[in-house]
C-alpha cells in the first residue's frame, strides 16, 4: 500500500463523496486511517439519522404535568425510602440477634417491624449471607416474604409492594437453591415471576429472576428451559447496559453447556468473558468466571491451567468472605488432585472441606465429599476408616433433620455394613454418592443398591 495514502488525511469533501457514491468500503486509505475512518462514520451516522422521520419532527412535546411535579414526587418517594431504610437498620439489629430459629417468633412480637424498609434490608443481607451461611439466608428471606405478603399495596405508591414481594421471593428462591432445596426454589421462582408480571416496568427484574430460574432448573435436567431463561436474561441485561448481570446470565448459560459436557464451547465463552472482566470492578463476578474456567479446563484435561484459574478465583472470593463459594472451588481442586493421583493430599483436603460444609449447612454436599473420601480409601482397602466416615455422615444427616434424611441414612448404612464386612467396593460407593447427590432434587427417591 502507498504510505502517502495513509499519511495524508482526506478532506471532508472527499469523505462525503466517498459516502455518497458508496465507495467508502472499497477505499484503500480508510481502513488504515483511524481519523478519516471515524470521520466518515460520523458523516454516515448523521446521514442515516437524517433519513429518520423523527429527527424532522419539530412539534413540541407538551406534557400534562411538568418537571416540578415529578421532581417533588420523586424526592418524596426517595426520602420515604431512605427514612424506612434507616429505621429498618435499627430494627434488624434486634431482629437478627441470636440464632435464626428465634427470628420469626421475634418478628411476630413486633408489629412495628413489618415495613418495606425491613424487607429491602433483609433481601440485601440475604445475598451476602447466602455466601457465608446459606441457612441464615433462607430464614432471612422467609421473614422478608412473610412481611412483604402482609404489606398493603394501597399504602405505597405505584407498584412498590408487588416489586418488593417479587424481590423477596426471588431472594428466597436463590437461597433455597443454595441449600439444595430445589423443588421449593422452583416454586419460589414462580411466585417471584408472578409478582413482577403485574408491574408496569418489569423486564429487568424478570431477567434477574431468569438467572435464578436457570440455576434452579438445571438440577432437574430441564436444560433446554434453563438455557432459554439464561439467554433471554443475558439479552435483557445487555440492553440495560448491565455488564455484571450480563456476565452472570452468560455463566448460567455456561453451566448448561457443562451439563451437556460441551466443555470446549464453554471454555470459548468463558475466555471471552474473562477478557471482558479483566478490567472490571466486579471482582465477585470475575471470580466466578475464573472458577468456571477452572472447571472447563479440568474437564478438558488442562490440569495446570485449571488449578491456576481456581487459585485466582479463590483469592478473589476470599476477599469477600464468600465462604460457600471458596469451599466449592477448593472441593473442585481436591477432586482434581485425586484424579491426577495425589490421593493422600486429596483425602486430607476433602476431610477439611467436609467439616466446613457441615458448619455451613451444606449437608448433602458434605455427604458427597465424605463419600468421595470413602471411595479413595476403599481403593487402598482402608475399610475401618470407611466405616468411621459413614458413621460421621449418618450423624450429620440425623442432626440436619432434612426431609430426605431417613433415605440418606438408609443408603449410607448400606455402605457401612458392606465396609464392616470388607465387601464394599468403588461401584457401591459411587452408586450411593450419586443417590445422595440426587436426593435434594428428588426427596422421595428410593435407594436401590447396585446389582451384586
Amino acid at each position, binding site marked *: 500500500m502507498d504510505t502517502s495514502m495513509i499519511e495524508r488525511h482526506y478532506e471532508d469533501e472527499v469523505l462525503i463523496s466517498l459516502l455518497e457514491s458508496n465507495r467508502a468500503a472499497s477505499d484503500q486509505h480508510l481502513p488504515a486511517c483511524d481519523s478519516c475512518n471515524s470521520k466518515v462514520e460520523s458523516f454516515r*451516522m448523521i446521514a442515516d439519522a437524517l433519513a429518520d422521520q423523527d429527527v424532522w419532527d419539530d412539534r413540541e412535546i407538551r406534557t400534562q404535568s411538568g418537571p416540578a411535579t415529578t421532581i417533588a414526587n420523586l424526592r418524596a418517594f426517595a426520602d420515604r425510602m431512605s427514612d424506612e431504610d434507616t429505621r429498618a437498620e435499627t430494627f434488624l439489629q434486634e431482629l437478627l440477634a441470636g440464632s435464626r430459629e428465634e427470628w420469626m417468633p421475634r418478628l411476630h412480637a413486633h408489629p412495628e417491624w413489618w415495613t418495606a424498609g425491613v424487607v429491602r434490608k433483609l433481601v440485601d443481607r440475604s445475598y451476602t449471607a447466602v455466601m457465608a451461611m446459606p441457612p441464615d439466608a433462607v430464614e432471612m428471606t422467609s421473614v422478608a416474604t412473610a412481611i412483604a405478603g402482609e404489606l398493603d399495596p394501597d399504602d405505597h405508591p405505584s407498584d412498590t409492594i408487588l416489586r418488593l414481594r417479587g424481590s423477596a421471593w426471588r431472594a428466597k428462591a436463590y437461597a433455597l437453591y443454595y441449600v439444595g432445596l430445589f423443588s421449593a426454589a422452583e416454586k419460589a421462582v414462580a411466585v417471584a415471576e408472578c409478582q413482577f408480571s403485574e408491574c408496569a416496568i*418489569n423486564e429487568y427484574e424478570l431477567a434477574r429472576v431468569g438467572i435464578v430460574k436457570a440455576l434452579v432448573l438445571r438440577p432437574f435436567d430441564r436444560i433446554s428451559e434453563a438455557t432459554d431463561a439464561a439467554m433471554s436474561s443475558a439479552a435483557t441485561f445487555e*440492553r440495560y447496559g448491565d455488564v455484571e448481570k450480563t456476565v452472570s446470565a452468560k455463566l448460567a448459560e455456561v453451566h448448561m453447556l457443562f451439563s451437556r459436557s460441551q466443555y470446549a464451547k464453554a471454555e470459548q465463552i468463558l475466555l471471552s468473558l474473562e477478557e471482558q472482566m479483566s478490567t472490571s470492578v466486579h471482582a465477585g463476578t470475575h471470580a466466578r468466571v475464573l472458577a468456571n474456567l477452572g472447571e472447563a479446563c479440568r474437564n478438558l484435561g488442562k490440569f495446570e491451567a485449571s488449578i491456576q484459574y481456581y487459585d485466582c478465583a479463590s483469592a478473589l472470593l476470599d476477599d469477600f468472605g464468600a465462604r460457600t463459594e471458596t469451599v466449592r472451588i477448593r472441593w473442585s481442586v481436591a477432586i482434581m488432585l485425586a484424579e491426577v493421583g495425589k490421593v493422600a493430599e486429596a483425602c486430607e483436603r476433602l476431610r477439611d472441606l467436609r467439616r466446613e460444609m457441615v458448619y455451613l449447612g451444606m449437608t448433602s454436599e458434605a455427604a458427597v465429599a465424605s463419600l468421595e473420601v470413602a471411595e479413595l480409601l476403599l481403593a487402598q482397602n482402608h475399610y475401618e476408616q470407611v466405616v468411621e466416615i459413614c458413621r460421621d455422615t449418618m450423624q450429620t444427616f440425623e442432626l440436619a433433620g432434612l426431609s430426605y434424611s431417613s433415605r440418606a441414612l438408609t443408603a449410607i448404612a448400606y455402605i457401612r455394613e458392606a465396609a464392616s464386612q470388607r465387601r464394599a467396593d468403588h461401584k457401591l460407593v459411587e452408586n450411593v454418592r450419586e443417590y445422595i447427590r440426587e436426593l435434594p432434587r428428588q426427596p422421595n427417591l428410593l435407594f436401590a443398591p447396585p446389582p451384586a
Partner: protein
Amino acid sequence: MLEQNTSDVTSKSARPRTEKTVRAATAPVAPPPPSTAADDVEALYIEHRNLLLYVACRKFRIPDSDAENLIQEVFLSFLQNSNKIDNVRAWLVAAMCNASRHYWRAQGRIESLPDDINDQSDPGSHGLADQFAMRMTVRQALDYLQPRCRETLWLHYFEGRSAGDVARELETTNRYAEKLIHNCLKRVREIYLSITAVAK
C-alpha cells in the same frame, strides 16, 4: 401511581428557523454539598428527562399528556433497584422502552394501537440509548441551520432525492446542489459536535 398535577410547565418557545450560535455555559461551579438519594434522583431526572420524553413521544408515539407519568414510573422503578447500575442512561432508556410497550399493551385493550408500534425501535438492538440520544441531538442541531440548508438535507437525505432533483427543486445547477448537500452535511455535523461538547 403517584399523583400528577395537570398544569403544564414545560412548553418550549417556538423553534427558531435562523442560524444561531451554540455556546457553552461558563458559570462558576461551587463545591457540591453531600448529596442525598433525593438530590441524586432529581439530578438524574433533569439530565435524562428530554431523552426519555423523546423516546416515549417520538419513538413509541406515546401521547404527550401521558409521557411524564411514564417517566415518573421509570424513575420510581430505578429508585427501587437495589443493584448498582453500570450505565444509567442505557438502563433508563431500556426501562422507558419497557414502560412504553406496557402502555400500548394496556391501551390495546381499549383502543387500537398505532399502526407502526412494531417499527418503533428494535428492543434487541444494542446501544439503543446512544442511538436515541444521537438522533435527539441531530434533531436539535437542525434547529440551528438556515432554512435553505434544512430543505436541502430534507430533500436529499429524507426524501432520498438525487443532487439533480435537488437542483431542480432549488432552481440551481447540479454542481451547486451537490456542493450545497456536502456543505450542509458538514455544517450539521459541526453543530452536532458543538452540542455534544457542551453537553459533556
